C-alpha cells in the first residue's frame, strides 16, 4: 500500500529549508548516531534493517559498508550516486529537489559508519535544480553545524562536495562514476579490486544511491523493528516507484515493498491511459524484462519480481498499451544503450552497435530472414561477458521482447511493417 516515509514532507514547499526540515525531525538521527552509537553499531543496524540498494542492483547497504577495511590507513570516501538516468527513473531527482536534507543526513550517517570525512554527491549535469538545491542544503547544514568541524561537539569532521556529471548514463555504474569523479572519461573499471577496497583515488569507497541513503536516517531514528514492519521479510521498508508511460496518473509513488503492481497502476495511477488495453509492463527501469498483463498482480519486491522473470531494478514502472509496436520500443531502447556504451569492452561496444543496426532495419521494414536469430546470437555473446552491467542491461529487454512477442518480430520481417502502428500524438 502507499506509505509516505521518504515522501512524508514532500508536499511542503518549505521542506527544502533547513529550519522546516529540522522542525520535522531532520538531523535527529545524525545526532543520535554520532553521540550515542559506534560506527560498527550503525552498520549493524542498517544491516539488520535489510535496506537494499535502491539504484537498481539491490545489494544490502549495511553489508556493503561492512566491506570497508578497518585497518586501512587511507582516507575513506562515501559517494552518493545521483546520476539518475535509467530510462523511466526520476525518483532521486524528486527527493533531492523536495527534501534534500534527508539525503544530506543519510550521507552524514553513512560517512560516520565507514569513517569518511569527505563525501561526494555525484549529480547528473542536466539536473541543475537538483544540484543547486543540494548545494544550498549542504551550505545550510554547514552553517548550522551539522557538517563541518567538530560536529555536535564530538570532534567528528565531515564535509560534502556536490559534483556534477556530464550526462552519461554509464556514470551511474559505480566504477565509471569513480573514473568520472577523478576527471577521467566515464569508463567502467575491471573488478576486483572492488571500490570498497580501492575506489576513489585508490582509497576505500562506498557508492550508494540517493534513495538508499535517504532511507538511513529513518532506520537510525525509528529503529530496525519499525523499518522491518514495512515490506516483506527479504524486501524490507518502503520504496519510491516512478510510474510512467501509458497510465492516467503518472508520478512518483512511495509504496511498502510487496505491494501488488496492480495497486500502483490501477489504484494510484488511474489505470491504463484513456481506457486502452495493457500490452506489457517494464517493472524496474528500461533494462528489466517485460511483464505481461496477467502478471499485473505481482508484488513489487525483489523476490516476487525475480520469480516473475524480471527485476525490481530502480523501481521505474513503464506501462505500455496495446497500440504499441514492441519492435519500436526495443529500437528506442537499443539506440539508447548503443549511445551510452562507454566503448571500453568489445562485446558491449560492438554488440550494441550490431543490435541497433539489425533491430532498426527490422523496424523500418528492411528486416531479413535470420535477423531474429542474429539478434539472439549477439545477445548471447554480450550477456555476462562485459566489464560492467551495461551490456546485460542492453540485452535483457531484447531477449524478453523476443521471447514474449516473437510473432510480432516475425510479422515485422515478413510483412515489412508493424503489426500495430505506433503513432503517439502529444496533446
Amino acid at each position, binding site marked *: 500500500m502507499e506509505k509516505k516515509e521518504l515522501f512524508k514532507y514532500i508536499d511542503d514547499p518549505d521542506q527544502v529549508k533547513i529550519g522546516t526540515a529540522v522542525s520535522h525531525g531532520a538531523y535527529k538521527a545524525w545526532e543520535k548516531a554520532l553521540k550515542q552509537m559506534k560506527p560498527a553499531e550503525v552498520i549493524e543496524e542498517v544491516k539488520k534493517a535489510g535496506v537494499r540498494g535502491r539504484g537498481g542492483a539491490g545489494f544490502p547497504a549495511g553489508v556493503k559498508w561492512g566491506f570497508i577495511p578497518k585497518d586501512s590507513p587511507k*582516507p575513506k570516501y562515501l559517494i552518493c550516486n545521483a546520476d*539518475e*538516468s*535509467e*530510462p*523511466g*527513473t*526520476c525518483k*532521486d*531527482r524528486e527527493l533531492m529537489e523536495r527534501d534534500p536534507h534527508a539525503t544530506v543526513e543519510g550521507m552524514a550517517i553513512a560517512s560516520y559508519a565507514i569513517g569518511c570525512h*569527505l563525501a561526494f554527491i555525484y549529480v*547528473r*549535469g*542536466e*539536473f*541543475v*535544480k537538483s544540484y543547486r538545491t543540494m548545494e544550498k542544503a549542504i551550505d545550510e547544514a554547514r552553517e548550522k553545524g551539522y557538517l563541518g568541524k567538530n560536529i555536535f561537539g564530538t570532534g567528528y569532521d565531515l564535509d560534502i*562536495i556536490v*559534483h*556534477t*556529471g*556530464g*550526462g*552519461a*548514463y554509464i556514470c551511474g555504474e559505480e566504477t565509471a562514476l569513480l573514473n*568520472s*569523479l*577523478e*576527471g*577521467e*572519461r*566515464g*569508463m567502467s573499471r575491471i573488478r576486483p579490486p572492488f571500490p570498497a577496497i580501492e575506489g576513489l*583515488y585508490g582509497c576505500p569507497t562506498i557508492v550508494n544511491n540517493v534513495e538508499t541513503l535517504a532511507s538511513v536516517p529513518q532506520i537510525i531514528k525509528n529503529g530496525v523493528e519499525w523499518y522491518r514492519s514495512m515490506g516483506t521479510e527479504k524486501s524490507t521498508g518502503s520504496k519510491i516507484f*516512478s*510510474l*510512467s*508511460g*501509458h497510465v492516467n496518473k*503518472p*508520478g*512518483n509513488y512511495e509504496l511498502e515493498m510487496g505491494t501488488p503492481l496492480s495497486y500502483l497502476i490501477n489504484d494510484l495511477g488511474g489505470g491504463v491511459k484513456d481506457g486502452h488495453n495493457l500490452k506489457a509492463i*517494464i517493472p524496474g527501469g*528500461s533494462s528489466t524484462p517485460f511483464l505481461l498483463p496477467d502478471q499485473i498482480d505481482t508484488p513489487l519486491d525483489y523476490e516476487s519480481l525475480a520469480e516473475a522473470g524480471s527485476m525490481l531494478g530502480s523501481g*521505474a514502472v*513503464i506501462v*505500455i498499451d496495446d497500440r*504499441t509496436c514492441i519492435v519500436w*520500443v526495443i529500437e*528506442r*531502447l537499443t539506440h*539508447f544503450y548503443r*549511445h*551510452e556504451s*562507454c566503448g571500453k569492452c568489445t562485446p558491449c561496444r560492438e554488440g550494441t552497435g550490431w543490435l541497433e543496426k539489425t533491430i532498426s532495419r527490422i523496424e523500418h521494414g528492411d528486416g531479413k530472414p535470420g535477423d531474429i536469430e542474429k539478434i539472439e546470437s549477439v545477445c548471447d555473446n554480450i550477456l555476462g561477458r562485459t566489464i560492467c552491467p551495461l551490456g546485460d542491461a542492453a540485452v535483457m529487454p531484447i531477449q524478453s521482447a523476443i521471447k514474449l512477442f516473437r510473432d510480432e518480430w516475425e510479422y515485422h520481417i515478413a510483412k515489412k511493417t508493424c503489426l500495430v502502428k505506433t*503513432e*503517439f*500524438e*502529444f*496533446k
Partner: protein
Amino acid sequence: MILNEQSIAEIKKKMVRYPKRKSAILPALTVAYYQVGHLNADIYEEISEITEIPTVDIAEAASFYTMFPKEPVGKYLIQVCHNISCALLGADSLISYLEEKLGIKKGETTSDELFTLISVECLGSCTTAPMMQINDKYYENLTREKVDAILDELRSRA
C-alpha cells in the same frame, strides 16, 4: 577571455575542494557550458589556465560527455527527450511540432541563431513526459499550448 568573471570565480571555488585537482574538470566544464552554450578548444585552454590542469586532460574528458555541444548552438538549445517514457506520450510528434514551429529540422539552428533543436536520451523526467530541456531549465508535461507559450516567451526575452 570567453569565460566571464562569475564563471571563473565559480570554477576557482570548485577546484580547491578536491583532494586531487583533476576532479574539477567536469564541474568546470559544466560551468563553462552553461555560460557559453557549447565547449571548444579555446575554452579548454582557459579552464587549463585557471585550474592548472593540462589542456589535453580537459579535452580528453570533454569529448566523452555528450551533454556538452562541441559546436556553437543557438541562444536557446532545445533538447527533447526521445527515450521510452516520453516516446510513449508523443515525443516524436513533439519534435515534429517544434520542427514545424521553428522552420528547421532536428539538428539545425534557426537563421536568427535563436534556437537549436536536438533530441536527447532520457533526462530523468519520465513521470512528467513529454518534456524538454532548454538551456538549464526543464519544461514538463508539454502540450501544444505550452510549447507555443514557451517559444513566445523565449522570443520576447531575446
